[in-house]
């Protein structure tokens, strides 16, 4: 049983006041792409603009002080949401930038080291030699794949990947993938396509034996389950605000402090420097070193309010609620003739992203029929084309659940699939 009061929660989200096509109620099953926002988040952001707006860390007047204070308070609060210290949390525009920040740290450290340019203490961990390896998996979102491909293409490092088992899990049987050339292992915590929750302790253990860094793509975990970076034992995590009830335009990179300190800057400009002359610039300590330019302070304040909202619900309760919906959805889908779930078919170590294909029906067409009755699912490759190829599908239809969904929404999903089949006569 779920401890969430979905009716009360829904009342906090203005978007559910509108109706969609043909005056249907909105059945929003696309939180895996982006979540809806409660008024508490929107109010926090607006309040920042209406009463404290100023450029943070750039002035000494009252508004600048208040804005800086609000921004840094948000940082501390979001850090505490994942069990971290404020100084180890970097704000980015989205998770994608956060991943690129890490991949470019390797590029920049490598190039600077080749030219004997100054590097922070400990930067050797980020210096790549020809033939060094970057290890990802076949279930990665493009955001956690393409930056590493690009890094390899520019440095001569080799990209390797962990394959997938038939039932949608990482195939960790080939432990030679973890070897002494492996510099970093970058994998997702929870697959946005398959729903699989990966065995992080196992990966950390394998990486530790070869001294590789571990980067965890937490886009689909931080919004949906309790995450404690210390307990996870990884070196980095990244996620976006917009998938956890927060504003668009903000993401986070968390890193162990000694690892962040060892990284040269990525995006450079104002506020990330210590001292600048035409000839030479020295850089601030993290997190500032990685936050060039006027930052998204209002969005940080909004994201912090989102963390408060989720904390008040209890992340255990959120996970339990989604688990309940996932079990119901998997059960409902199992009965549908011609339907194949792409990803684990049971609810063990599994989040609420449920992807499927229907024989004789293209996902785009399925999604269209559902949309016509107000059900918003996502169709396509979900930025995870390699995993689609792995499972021999061109695209899937995907439903994802969140705190404002209930069993009625699951029923709507199942009914929607039957309508689509009927509409197309398959």
């Amino acid at each position, binding site marked *: 049983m779920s401890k969430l009061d979905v009716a009360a929660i829904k009342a906090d989200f203005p978007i559910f006041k509108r109706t969609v*096509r*043909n005056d249907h109620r909105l059945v929003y099953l696309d939180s895996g792409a982006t979540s809806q926002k409660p008024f508490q988040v929107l109010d926090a952001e607006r309040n920042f603009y209406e009463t404290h707006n100023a450029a943070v860390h750039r002035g000494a007047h009252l508004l600048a002080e208040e804005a800086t204070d609000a921004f840094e308070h948000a940082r501390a609060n979001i850090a505490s949401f994942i069990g971290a210290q404020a100084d180890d949390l970097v704000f980015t525009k989205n998770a994608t930038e956060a991943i690129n920040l890490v991949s470019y740290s390797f590029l920049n450290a490598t190039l600077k080291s080749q030219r004997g340019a100054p590097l922070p203490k400990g930067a050797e961990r980020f210096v790549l030699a020809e033939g060094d390896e970057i290890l990802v998996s076949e279930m990665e979102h493009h955001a956690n794949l393409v930056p590493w491909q690009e890094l390899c293409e520019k440095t001569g490092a080799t990209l390797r990947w962990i394959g997938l088992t038939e039932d949608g899990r990482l195939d960790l049987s080939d432990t030679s993938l973890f070897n002494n050339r492996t510099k970093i292992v970058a994998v997702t915590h929870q697959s946005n396509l398959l729903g699989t929750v990966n065995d992080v302790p196992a990966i950390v253990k394998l990486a530790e034996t070869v001294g590789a860094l571990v980067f965890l793509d937490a886009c689909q975990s931080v919004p949906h389950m309790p995450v404690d970076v210390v307990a996870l034992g990884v070196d980095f995590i990244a996620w976006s605000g917009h998938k956890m009830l927060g504003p668009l335009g903000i993401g986070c990179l968390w890193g162990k402090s000694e690892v962040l300190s060892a990284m040269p800057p990525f995006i450079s400009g104002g506020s990330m420097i210590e001292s600048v002359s035409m000839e030479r610039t020295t850089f601030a300590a993290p997190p500032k070193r990685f936050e060039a330019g006027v930052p998204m302070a209002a969005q940080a304040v909004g994201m912090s309010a989102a963390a408060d909202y989720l904390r008040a619900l209890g992340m255990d309760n959120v996970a339990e609620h989604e688990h309940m919906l996932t079990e119901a959805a998997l059960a409902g889908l199992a009965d549908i003739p011609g339907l194949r779930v792409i990803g684990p078919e049971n609810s063990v170590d599994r989040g609420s992203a449920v992807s499927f294909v229907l024989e004789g029906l*293209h*996902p*785009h*067409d399925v999604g*269209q*029929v559902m949309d*016509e009755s107000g059900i918003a699912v996502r*169709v*396509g*490759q979900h930025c995870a*084309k390699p995993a*689609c190829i792995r499972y021999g599908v*061109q*695209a899937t239809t995907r439903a994802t659940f969140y705190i404002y969904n209930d069993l009625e929404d699951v029923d709507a999903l199942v009914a929607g699939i039957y309508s689509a089949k009927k*509409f*197309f006569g398959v």
Partner: protein
Amino acid sequence: MKLENMYQEIILDHYKRPHGKGLAEQFDAEVHHVNPTCGDEITLRVSRGADGKIVVSYDNMGCSISQASASIMFDQINNLDFESGEAAVEHLIAMLQRTVEADEDILGDGIALAGVAQYPARVKCALLAWMAWKDAAIQAGADNNESKIFTESNKEQN
């Protein structure tokens, strides 16, 4: 129901029994276009006759709209010269942007695609095959005046 405007019988017929699907062995140019969000793909080949007529063949995967539209494309512009084919493509675009009334003489069964205009996310599906044709025709040197109008956002860049 608006949905039936898009999924007209005639569209579903083309989808289920596509015309001209299958690649020719001989060709002057081949293109591969994709719709990156949904994964729809088409491989399309053209050869130019001495008379300037362009023969098209294709193979594709995708949703009902993209497949039906490819089938209609084949019916309408296979074996036309570049100018006539391009005019049909432009007319289809204009119809989907609702800036003209659909002309059955130009689009044939394609006028049934008018319902797609209500669903902006699907317009790309309806255009995929036609844009691929235009790209291939240009690559085959069919556009004597090297039309600069053409910029296809899904064209491979690297």
